[in-house]
């Protein structure tokens, strides 16, 4: 069966520090991968998605970037965090062709202070 791992679960970082959140998927190959952010009391905002290694689509201009160095690894990064980067970050995967269903990781609560 497929599983998705996302870490860390909680992160507190000072303003101006770098960020690296990692997400890996097991039990499938060539998945679509996604990064979302949920701000407090808000819905899910799609940040990035990837349909293959090295292929990244950015949905909103921001202080963050994403990379997919391996088929089942998706990384969310920032060189310098802003206060507004605080939120709940979610990684998700989907089989791609033939299915719209996305499966989410447990999320990372990021607090930038």
């Amino acid at each position, binding site marked *: 069966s497929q599983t998705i791992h996302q870490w860390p679960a909680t992160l507190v970082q000072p303003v101006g520090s770098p960020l690296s959140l990692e997400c890996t998927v097991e039990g499938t190959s060539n998945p679509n991968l996604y990064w979302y952010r949920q701000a407090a009391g808000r*819905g*899910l905002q799609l940040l990035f*998605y990837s*349909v293959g290694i090295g292929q990244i689509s950015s949905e909103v201009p921001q202080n963050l970037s994403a990379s997919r160095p391996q088929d089942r690894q998706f990384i969310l990064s920032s060189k310098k965090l802003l206060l507004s980067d605080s939120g709940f970050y*979610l990684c998700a995967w989907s089989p791609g062709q033939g299915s*719209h*269903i996305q499966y*989410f990781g447990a*999320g990372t609560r990021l607090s930038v202070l």
Partner: protein
Amino acid sequence: DQQVKQNSPSLSVQEGRISILNCDYTNSMFDYFLWYKKYPAEGPTFLISISSIKDKNEDGRFTVFLNKSAKHLSLHIVPSQPGDSAVYFCAVGTGGYNKLIFGAGTRLAVHP
């Protein structure tokens, strides 16, 4: 410009009664519709879905209804249970399978 709207931020229902969560969308090109359930500090979990060729899909206590002419989607939970208390997101997709657009969510509270 919100393409998917969940106009009720919260809903309170008594245990055993029906919970009805609503969702409206703007683009008639959307052809696949999903509901997710989310507990605090966890990722959303897929609940039920429906494609545009249907108007109803059932899975146990959960039924999703689609009214394409009204661009309206609803989730019925019968009977509601305290464990159903969570935030429910509707999401829509198109034939490209690459992206979903989520609503802002409705917080359901089921009380005894």
